[in-house]
């Protein structure tokens, strides 16, 4: 019997959570909910105050919510991104978060009533100081650099890949297609997701990888390795904001509201830097880990509203695709 129970424990999700406590179901991206992301800390912290059971469901958050429609089991979604939220808003999936956004420490003003930022960073190319002595200091430098190889993510499948696409749009506007044509020969490969790109970079496959300005913090904090750095471009960097939202059809509205409070709490915010490797959205800079305070930051934040992003997405993807098909 014991081996059987053990097996059942390995296999049947939720079997152990059959207590009387209410369950708050939170949809999150894989990296967020995994053993090595912020998920476990958040789960423990929230469960300590809510008298409930917090259950993460990881995977593609928005496609899953759109697929499920009214049948969704989600109460809260976390890990969404500004560039794709318009469809969710139009589908009427989410309810107002009810939080005061005045105290947020974002580089842009934020007054959205549905999507609540919890952390942010900038898209950036990360390089290894020991292998690249003179990194490009602007997009123009990058386009002109010879002998430089980079790995990027596919904007059709990766949120960071889309951020780069919008970054190039923000810098080059009408000329973005031309810029991509000059960038394409330097692109070693385009990967499906961020992890594969970053893995190729750490294996030494490419000189630079599309990632975030906060990525070097991981190496500094967790590996005591300061050889990785983000190349800061004088054009400014595209802002990457991650969001949480309350599902309109939730059957746990009070718990969902409580979770929204928790997202902006000091405890939650303090966990973010060294688990999700981003800047917290509401925490005084003085309370950031030293490594984050020391990280160089871009002079300007480039950012499109969700309407602008959605309008740009298709034509930008198409000209990107054409640049690579030559």
């Amino acid at each position, binding site marked *: 019997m014991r081996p059987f129970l053990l*097996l059942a424990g*390995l*296999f*049947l*999700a*939720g*079997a152990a959570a059959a207590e009387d406590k209410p369950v708050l179901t939170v949809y999150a991206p*894989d*990296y967020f*909910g*995994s*053993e*090595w*992301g912020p998920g476990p800390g958040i789960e423990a912290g929230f469960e300590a105050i809510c008298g409930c059971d917090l259950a*993460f*469901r*990881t*995977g*593609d958050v*928005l*496609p*899953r919510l*759109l*697929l*499920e429609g009214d*049948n969704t089991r989600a109460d809260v979604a976390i890990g969404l991104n500004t560039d*794709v939220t318009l*469809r969710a808003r139009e589908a009427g999936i989410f309810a107002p978060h009810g939080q005061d956004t005045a105290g947020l420490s974002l580089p842009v003003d934020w007054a959205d009533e549905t999507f609540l930022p919890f952390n942010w960073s900038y898209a950036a190319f990360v390089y290894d100081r020991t292998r690249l002595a003179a990194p490009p200091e602007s997009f123009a430098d990058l386009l002109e650099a010879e002998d430089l*190889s980079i790995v990027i993510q*596919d904007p*059709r*499948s990766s949120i960071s890949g*889309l951020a780069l696409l919008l970054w190039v749009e923000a810098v080059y506007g009408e000329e973005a297609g031309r810029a991509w044509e000059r960038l394409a020969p330097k*692109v*070693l*490969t*385009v*990967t*499906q*997701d*961020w*992890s*594969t790109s*970053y*893995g*190729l970079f*750490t*294996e*030494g*496959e*490419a000189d630079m990888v599309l990632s975030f300005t906060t*990525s070097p913090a*991981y*190496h500094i904090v*967790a590996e005591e390795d300061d050889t990785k750095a983000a190349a800061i471009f004088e054009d400014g960097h595209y802002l990457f904001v991650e969001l949480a939202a309350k599902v309109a059809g939730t059957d746990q509205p009070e718990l969902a509201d409580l979770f929204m409070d928790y997202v902006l709490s000091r405890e939650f915010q303090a966990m973010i830097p060294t688990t999700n*490797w981003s800047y917290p959205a509401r925490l005084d800079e003085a309370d950031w880990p030293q490594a984050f305070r020391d990280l160089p930051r871009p002079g300007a934040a480039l950012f499109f509203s969700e309407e602008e992003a959605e309008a740009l997405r298709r034509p930008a993807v198409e000209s*990107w*695709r054409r640049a*690579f*098909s030559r």
Partner: protein
Amino acid sequence: MTAGRVAAGCVFAVVLAPLAAVIWRAGGLSGFGAAEWAAIRFTVVQAAVSAVLSVAAAIPLARALARREFPGRGVLVTLLGAPFLLPVIVAILGLLAVFGQAGLLGRGLGLLGVEAPRIYGFHGVVLAHVFFNLPLAVRLLLQGWLAIPGERFRLAASLGFGPSDVMRHLEWPMLRDVVPGLLAVIFLICTTSFAVALTLGGGPAATTVELAIYQAFRFDFDPGKAALLSIGQLILTGLAALAAARIAIPANFGDGLDRTARRWDATALWLRAQDALLIGAGGLFLLLPLGAITAQGLAAFARLPDAVWAAAARSLVVALVSAGLAIGLALALAVAASRKSRSPGFELAGTVGVAVSPLVLGTGLYLLLLPVADPVALALPVTALANALMSLPFAFRALLPAARAAERDYGRLADSLGMGGWARLRRLTLPRLRRPLGFAAGLAAALSMGDLGVIALFADPEFATLPLQVYRLMAAYRMEEAAAAALLLLGLTLALFWAFDRGGRGHATV
């Protein structure tokens, strides 16, 4: 008979119901644009090139192995089977460690002052597919070579045949029989490739249909387009599968490879040198990446987190359940197909799995389960089912020749004794199919170990499988531990295959 019908019915239901669910949810199919047609074209072209190159490279290698005897030959032939079984993510890491910019080859050439050619792009995809499928081709061709009776070579020697005469009169007719089926099989495998194209493709020009399906779901949220692409893929692979079924598929890849026929025509020194070179080069091409994976994974192996070991246990159980399902279905279909001279229905049921898009399958099953149960709670059973469906074609192909042989040799005897149902299965089918059953079970279990096609949509952080943990470690910047987890995945996959294949061989009589 009825078991075969039930199995075929189950297979078709599991393939078509999810597709229907996706179309229903999408409210119809949406049209193709230039990008979709480009994906279809790329898929067909790269699959065709990969198949031709795999077979072209396999012919001289199999020929060399067939006519040479040397210490370690058995081990080499066994290890050559490994790449086909490798989880894709692991294989790509290994390939890059050898052929990547910072790989062995790149650094070696760098020392000579030569810049290594980039692996990324069309040729990278083809290289990876050759890496996966060359071993399969070598094993099947070796089988063909060993099926040429030794007496023929004796006769050839008595008539003073040289190597080219032997090629013309003995080897060419065998190749003519074996090669078309082989090409079709490898073409099929390459059409559904996903992860290979995505990493090594070098850019959006290398978009396969499966990748386009992924993008349609994930970014455009256009299930109608995904469904249409999936139907296109089904038709494409269905046609190739039917063509493959018309051509004799080489029997039983797996047994009797540990012998050579005595040859008199290939004793010249330069021929020996040529074969040694071929075997050496082929061995290095296939085994170096395995060595690289091992070397990279060892560093962090000792500090693999518990969560990885738990995931490994979970993946093992999923693989076993999946292998059981695949074998059950394959056996029912193979037995049913073996009792008729032509049986397109059973053949199609046995082959269709290769054409199924894991993503559409997963999404469809998710939609179907949603109203009745919590799909996430059923993530692992669903994974086992989907993996079983994906490995069914290989299991079916492995069992069919033996099932036909058993039916041909003992079918009438069993009929005359009234052995039907369970008695026939226990007393005739299972014992006669023991070796291919072990082989097929090993294959199914190994393929299931590495797959994460459907789990992405269902995943629950507490119930991850091992390949998913590899990705999660990578997503958390933990590349060393990811490499160690990949090594664990490699070891378990090969161990599973070896154990089943061994079990099939043990106590084999006659």
